């Protein structure tokens, strides 16, 4: 219990939150790189996946890219960036790494979602005279929505997790509280930082689950 008490004390001490290396600044960095990376990844992956799903091509790419994403360690990619001149470009190494790891879940899930739309429904829509665009907007997109949101959720969680690993190569973000704690053998700070990182990830997941239900075009509960 000692560590938890100490971690609580760390979290409730105002001085730990202020300043350049303070928790508030680290949280800001974390949210900034995560937000930018997720937006860029969505802008790249979603149009590509939805288009490929609509025309029914490129399945091997969409599926295999997520296997590749799983096999490559985040830490290795960040470290590779840090031994190139890219290390001097501020938040970019982190953002590029985050984008690389956010694209696979977005791409795979959106593609699979599009392909899993019942062919009979698509044929029916075509038979009613819908054009390709109408079919896409009114039929395929709403039916693929749950999978697209699943992809968005796992990408967001992946991004938040990856952003914390950036601290291991000396980049900014909430993970720095943890690594700084390790460097000074301050277990309470390590624990407090871990609580913040884990809390943020769970919060992001929770918010996205809520948004998913709120925005679902079908507004129905999926059977359990």
């Amino acid at each position, binding site marked *: 219990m000692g560590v938890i008490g100490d971690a609580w004390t760390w979290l409730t001490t105002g001085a730990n939150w202020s300043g350049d290396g303070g928790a508030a600044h680290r949280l800001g960095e974390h949210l900034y790189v995560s937000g930018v990376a997720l937006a860029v990844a969505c802008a790249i992956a979603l149009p590509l996946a939805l288009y490929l799903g609509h025309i029914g091509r490129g399945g091997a790419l969409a599926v295999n890219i997520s296997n590749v994403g799983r096999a490559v360690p985040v830490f290795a990619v960040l470290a590779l960036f840090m031994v190139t001149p890219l290390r001097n470009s501020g938040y970019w190494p982190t953002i590029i790494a985050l984008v690389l790891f956010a694209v696979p879940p977005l791409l*795979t899930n959106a593609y699979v979602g599009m392909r899993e739309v019942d062919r009979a429904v698509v044929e029916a829509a075509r038979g009613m005279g819908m054009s390709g665009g109408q079919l896409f907007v009114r039929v395929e997109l709403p039916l693929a929505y749950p999978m697209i949101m699943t992809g968005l959720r796992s990408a967001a969680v992946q991004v938040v997790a990856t952003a914390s690993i950036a601290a291991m190569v000396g980049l900014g973000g909430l993970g720095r509280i943890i690594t700084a704690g390790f460097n000074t053998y301050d277990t309470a700070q390590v624990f407090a930082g871990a609580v913040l990182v884990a809390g943020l990830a769970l919060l992001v997941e929770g918010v996205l689950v809520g948004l998913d239900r709120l925005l679902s075009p079908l507004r129905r509960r999926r059977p359990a």
Partner: protein
Amino acid sequence: MAEQNCLVTNDWICGEYLRSRSQELTDATVQHIGITVVSVLIGLAVAFPLALLARRGRRFAGPVLGLTTVLYTVPSLAMFSLLLPVFGLSAALVVTGLVLYSLTILVRNILAGLEAVPEEARDAARGMGYGPGRLLWEVELPLALPAVMAGLRIATVSTVALTTVGSLVGKGGLGNLIEDALPSFFKAQVLAASVLCVLLAVAADLLLLGLQRLLTPWTRISGTSRTPGTAGGGRTDPDGPGGPAGLPAPAKVEAG
């Protein structure tokens, strides 16, 4: 002399590095494999009873799947740090963290595999006088094996990659080499360790794919053409319930 120079000029690929530090690379690889294998085996041993429990009904399925999903959401850096007060700077800390991660995919895939067993197969076995234990071992598990193996492959590949984060506590296998190389921007070491890591993941995936084929010879006779197993195993993943980010999870969590 020319080869010595690649250490001085800090080239990406350096034969002299691979030669002079081969022992270091081997040790790190052995540690990496050890941590991965132990984690996945323990994960499997824990996931099976959990999946059997979850199968007993929604009352158990909700909490089990909910808990493993929450664990999976916790970033690896935070997971290892949260375990620090319990385990200290040890390999047990890394293994425990990796086990907790592997549970999500393993439990979900074992459960889905068991639930996909045709009811007729169960009825036939019961009619032949199989008890619950024998039914599980001799009928349900073999039929669930493709889904279980698909989950095992995903869990193993992820574990190989995640082990690198263990360098946080000095037990990250090849991750340790990456971390050691950072302060001096030692390109050859970062690249060699990273490539070895990916090769390990691919090798483990292929090995498990081979094992799966060996264990489930009937899936090859069924006539439907199977694509030759690529490193990614693209065929199994989308079908596998734990496939792209585990589709069945949200629905099950709601139920809890």
